[in-house]
């Protein structure tokens, strides 16, 4: 479904991604794990077109994404829920969801809205509220709901559990699994390696811009190096 081959990304003079290649197949949950600054978010930003790779190729459902503008990439069903939620703080919950469906036709928007509200009843209760006044967990739900409004074929989630209380983290991961069961393919970036790998079909470990290890979620969870580096021994 998504195939990334040998991408190299720079921030000015600093190279953040060094020859990363990986794949996501239809129906999988693929986890990218790694420490702060390993290049996980940079990878997602490159896939969604906010950053550009100087080399290699990115192919999503037979479409070349290397030179496609970010706003077109969304239309093809590759949807990025960014780190730190990045919801529109001064707009209402429903306006945020409307923006998520910016690329969708009018009649699908109503269906999507109903589906998102069914998935996140909390958002329906607060639909007229200004998004900036929501709690952290609600904001994460809004960010994910907004992503779902675009009818994603592949949903990329960047640190969905960041800054949330443990009970909310579990809730978010339950939602991710539910979305997966409903047929959405997921590319998950997480610092919470334990949680991410336990639901992942496959995973990749990123270290200072390189893929150093790959395997199924269970393999990586049992791997000694991964346990030492990311799972606290």
């Amino acid at each position: 479904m998504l195939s990334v081959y040998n991408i190299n990304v720079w921030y000015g003079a600093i190279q953040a991604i060094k020859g990363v290649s990986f794949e996501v197949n239809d129906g999988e949950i693929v986890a990218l794990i790694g420490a702060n600054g390993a290049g996980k978010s940079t990878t997602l930003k490159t896939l969604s077109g906010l950053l550009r790779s100087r080399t290699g190729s990115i192919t999503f459902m037979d479409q070349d994404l290397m030179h496609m503008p970010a706003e077109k990439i969304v239309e093809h069903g590759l949807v990025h829920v960014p780190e730190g939620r990045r919801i529109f703080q001064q707009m209402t919950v429903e306006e945020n969801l409307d923006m998520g469906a910016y690329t969708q036709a009018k009649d699908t928007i109503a269906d999507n809205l109903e589906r998102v509200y069914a998935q996140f009843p909390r958002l329906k209760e607060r639909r007229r509220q200004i998004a900036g006044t929501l709690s952290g967990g609600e904001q994460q739900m809004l960010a994910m709901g907004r992503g779902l409004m675009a009818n994603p074929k592949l949903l990329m989630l960047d640190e969905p559990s960041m800054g949330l209380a443990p009970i909310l983290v579990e809730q978010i991961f339950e939602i991710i699994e539910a979305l997966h069961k409903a047929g959405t393919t997921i590319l998950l970036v997480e610092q919470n390696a334990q949680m991410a790998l336990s639901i992942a079909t496959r995973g990749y470990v990123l270290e200072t811009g390189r893929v150093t290890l790959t395997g199924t979620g269970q393999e990586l969870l049992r791997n000694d190096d991964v346990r030492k580096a990311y799972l606290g021994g």
Partner: protein
Amino acid sequence: MEVLTNLINGMSLGSVYAIIALGYTMVYGIAKMLNFAHGDVIMVGAYICFCSVSYLGLPAFAGVALSVVGCTLLGIIVERLAYKPLRNAPSLNVLITAIGVSYFLQNAALIIMGSDPKSFSSIISLPALSLFDGKLTISATAVLTIFACVVIMVALTMFTGKTKMGKAMRACSEDRDAAQLMGINVNSTISMVFAIGSGLAAIAGVLMCLAYPTLMPTTGSMPGIKAFTAAVLGGIGSIPGAALGGVLLGIIEIFARAYISTQLADAVVFGVLIVILLIRPAGLLGKPVNEKV
């Protein structure tokens, strides 16, 4: 009755400032730049209207329409040629470019139209209205200006609140990257904001020249600076703030002129700005900015 006349004149002048300030504030909101050439777009708008009426012999409303179309195009072209290449440049570079565009427009007008003032009242002049048995005289221009400002404000509020493009505009102002991830084309949204702002500047130019009918290549600079002040006073980036700031500034200016001193009026206006910014640094309706890391 004199107070009432001054109040109406102040609101009328303030409405012109408000309409110009909308352009400043919307462009700042979305492109995070101060478009100091905005004042000169007013002047171009007034010249287009003047030329179409006095040289082409068109009726006044056609002149206004042409001037709106002309300035809208001018806004789009200036953004495309001068500002878009600097989208990721430091803000000082963009600011200096805007000042450059301002000089360019003024000097282009000087070459094309000459330095002698054109009299706007020779092409359009509206009667004075007499109310209460002649006790209160107000100009039809003032009424028209205030009315135009109200219509524009209502239309813009509806546009940004209800339409898809308007909401996309607000989304871009808040978070450009996130807006792009929604599938919003940021470049065309910025282009649209420049188009709207410049079209409004054309209307402001015509309205201003109806009240102060001397048209010169530098006509736009002072109102441009005042409108910028109004935008800052109201809270830059805020549309209701621009309207409030503009009207307040106009009223203060006219009252200062009438009751304090004609020469000191501008000093009073800018003095008020300084005092208000000392008390509310983000402006009257501006939100304090919390930079997050």
